């Protein structure tokens, strides 16, 4: 055992910055990290044991206790819940003979819940020993568990049906479907691979490339919308021995899965974007931070990188350009939504818990190992290839004045055709609804849980205009009357997550509660605000849903939601949005639950409170009161 750990740490030169890789390798061997392993790691890496434990206990896919031979991570995002998650969960518990959060007695199965795994268009899905199983039903669960019990590996269990396109590639072999519904320029199948790097870069200076991207007004596609050209410009400006390009493939916002599809069908485009960015900024280190949930793509992506190296598209003097040296390494995450935040991602890359950094300094000044670092989203990088090839003016032919180009939307929820839609900016919500074949729509969540719910219900009358300025959205929940609003940076900005809810859904009980659970689970816990408030606010919402709410509770939630705005990162700042925005725009839903709009909760229902006890003893309590 000792030798194996030493082999692993030696593979990474006993470098504490590679702790994530070391821990992943240890999990591959033993499934968890034991006390003895930590002791040895502490010696080898020159860290205290609690420091190593700090990283392990932060990530969802790491464990300090033995896990099962098969570990089933069932996704609990809202759209999975709408498509039978609870039944699947129950079926899994029965078939595996254990409850969620534990390992079966024979050590065969470990059952765990997990936040969105980027399969919202084919949920409920689960990850079993790094393999993804989609469209789960109770029947499929029984069959699957029986297969595993009979000695089949998850790999073998999958082989009966792999997905379309590269999902059936020998390096992938996943049961995942791309569901590409609409292609425009980014998803154009007829492109020539690596054309830009091979033939176009030579003719342009790095500054010229940055100019093209700046002129195109391309904005970051991850959701925040920072101008990409400007970021490259800043990154280039700082004097440094090394510069770093990071591709953020930690697609964690519930409801988005477009990066997964890009990495499956257009990995060359993403990597080419990285090479272009490296050329433009003078970077020599390239890193892809791939979320653990997409580990099934790891071999495939590395295979592409190997091919690129062989073809001189990575390494030294790339594409014959003298002293243009750049290479890419893929770093796996280990399950933490907050690592999608660029500075948390960098912390994680350095082997630490994914806690966002204070800014300034920004990553473009001091990022990975203190080198100037440019973090770009998968889709952003793919888009830059198209821009450099066709020019900024061509790009400006798509979209609206303030939002140029096209955007990949990940559409899921109550619609006939969930999947990926490439649309021009300026597309209205109504058009998206029609494209996806949804009807009887109650609300559309644009931009994931960190978005804001918006309806037109008398916003001004409720005196909430003042409050609205607090909630600068990264996305919104749109109600019927405003379906003509357009996807754009000035109206409805989005990273591409579109979730549709029909009129049968209970927005508070199902949707808002699910989103709050997500934020409670995924907070890094560093800020006093985001660590505590989502939990406290969810309890209050539960109180209202239980029928004990009073008018003041609604106002309390609004005013408490303000405090959370002083958290450090975007995740923290938006973690009360599901509640606050739904009050602002669906207040009537809350008022339905607040009994007769009472000012205080004066009813203690004695009979109701002893109901459980009554049924247990099989008789009715005899109350001697009026």
């Amino acid at each position, binding site marked *: 055992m000792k030798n194996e750990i030493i082999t692993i740490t030696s593979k990474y030169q006993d470098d504490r910055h590679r702790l994530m890789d070391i821990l992943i390798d240890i999990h591959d061997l033993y499934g968890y990290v034991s006390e003895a392993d930590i002791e040895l790691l502490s010696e080898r890496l020159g860290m*205290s044991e609690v420091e190593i434990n700090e990283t392990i206990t932060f990530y969802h896919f790491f464990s300090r206790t033995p896990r099962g031979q098969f570990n089933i991570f069932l996704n609990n995002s809202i759209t999975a819940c709408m498509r039978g998650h609870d039944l699947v969960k129950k079926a899994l518990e029965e078939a595996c003979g254990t409850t969620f959060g534990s390992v079966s007695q024979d050590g065969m199965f470990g059952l765990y819940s997990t936040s969105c795994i980027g399969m919202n268009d084919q949920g409920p899905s689960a990850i079993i020993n790094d393999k993804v199983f989609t469209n789960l039903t109770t029947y499929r669960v029984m069959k699957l568990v029986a297969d595993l019990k009979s000695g089949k590996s998850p790999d073998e269990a999958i082989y009966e049906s792999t997905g379309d396109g590269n999902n059936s590639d020998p390096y992938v072999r996943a049961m995942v479907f791309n569901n590409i519904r609409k292609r425009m320029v980014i998803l154009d199948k007829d492109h020539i691979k690596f054309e830009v790097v091979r033939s176009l870069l030579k003719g342009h200076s790095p500054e010229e490339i940055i100019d093209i991207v700046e002129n195109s007004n391309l904005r970051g596609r991850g959701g925040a919308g920072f101008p990409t050209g400007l970021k490259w410009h800043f990154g280039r400006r700082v004097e440094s021995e090394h510069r770093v390009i990071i591709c953020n493939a930690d697609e964690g916002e519930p409801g988005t899965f477009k990066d997964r599809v890009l990495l499956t069908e257009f990995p060359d485009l993403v990597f080419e974007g990285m090479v272009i960015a490296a050329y433009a900024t003078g970077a020599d280190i390239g890193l892809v931070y791939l979320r653990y949930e997409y580990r099934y793509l790891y071999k495939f992506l590395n295979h592409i990188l190997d091919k690129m190296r062989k073809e001189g598209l990575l390494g030294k003097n790339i594409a014959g350009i003298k002293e243009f040296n750049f290479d890419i390494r893929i770093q796996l995450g280990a399950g933490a939504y907050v690592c999608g935040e660029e500075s948390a991602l960098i912390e994680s890359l350095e082997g630490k818990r994914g806690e966002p950094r204070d800014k300034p300094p920004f990553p473009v000044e001091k990022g990975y190992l203190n080198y100037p670092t440019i973090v770009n989203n998968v889709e952003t990088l793919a888009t830059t290839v198209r821009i450099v090839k066709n020019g900024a003016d061509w790009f400006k032919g798509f979209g609206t004045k303030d939002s140029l180009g096209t955007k990949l939307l990940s559409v899921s929820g109550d619609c006939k055709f969930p999947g990926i839609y490439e649309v021009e900016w300026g597309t209205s919500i109504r058009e998206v609804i029609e494209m996806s074949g949804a009807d009887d729509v109650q609300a559309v969540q644009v931009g994931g849980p960190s978005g804001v719910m918006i309806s037109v219900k008398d916003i001004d009358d409720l005196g909430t205009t003042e409050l609205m300025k607090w909630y600068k959205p990264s996305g919104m929940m749109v109600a019927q009357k405003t379906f003509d609003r357009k996807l754009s940076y000035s109206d409805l900005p989005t990273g591409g997550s579109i979730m549709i809810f029909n009129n049968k859904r209970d927005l508070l009980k199902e949707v808002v509660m699910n989103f709050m659970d997500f934020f409670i689970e995924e907070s890094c*816990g560093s800020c006093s605000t985001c660590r505590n408030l989502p939990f406290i606010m969810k309890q209050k919402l539960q109180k209202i849903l239980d029928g004990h709410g009073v008018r003041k509770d609604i106002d309390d939630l609004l005013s408490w939601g303000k405090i959370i705005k002083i958290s450090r990162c975007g995740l923290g700042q938006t973690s009360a949005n599901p509640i606050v925005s739904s009050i602002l725009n669906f207040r009537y839903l809350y008022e339905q639950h607040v009994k007769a709009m009472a000012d205080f909760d004066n009813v203690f229902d004695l009979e109701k409170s002893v109901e459980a006890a009554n049924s247990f003893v099989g008789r009715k309590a005899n109350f001697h009161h009026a």
Partner: protein
Amino acid sequence: MNTTIKFKIDGREIIAEKGQTIVEAAKANGVYIPTLCNFEGLPPKGCCRMCTIRISNRYMTSCTTPVAEGMEVESDIPEITDFRKGIVELLFVSGNHFCPACEKSGNCELQALAYRFKMMVPRFPFLFPQKGIDATNPKIIKEQNRCILCKRCIKGIKDDEGRSYFAYKNRGNKLEVVLDEKMGKEITDALARKAMDNCPVGSIIYKELGYYQPIGKRKYDKKPIGSEIEI
């Protein structure tokens, strides 16, 4: 080279050195900005959000933000005071803080801030979380009920090779600060005492030393926290 910077906090002119943080500059100019996780001599990490200020409508933490020429900082305004009080209340309800029975009472920064912000009953419901006490170390008691997860011990108590005696464990509202069992056994008296002094609350207690300073003669017994800074 001129390294002096002028800026304003709540309209009052502040003269600062380039490279200082807002908290440092404020302190040097007799302006108190309440802090909890910040500790002189340690790199700042905006964990508690207590020192939040507003600069051109953006919230920043003044312990991590460097001063800049001409910046206009809003600090002592009702909105931000309410946020700060809210944080104190959050820390009270998310732990189990029973001041009368705490060795640190009177020397506790959280308690002192609660007095300063005139906290009566927290606006949030008490959570009464189940937390433990680790008294296995020969010198230190780690009282998790009182820990506010400020990171001061994590950043400040290290051995000669830079390894931390304390670290976080878990995440979100399950976050804890734990003491390294092995290194903890070897901790020197001086470092153990330093750990206690580093702790803003009564979560790190040096064994057998809890009440060495009598109640009534403690740091915040006579004057509120911050009054040593304010002019």
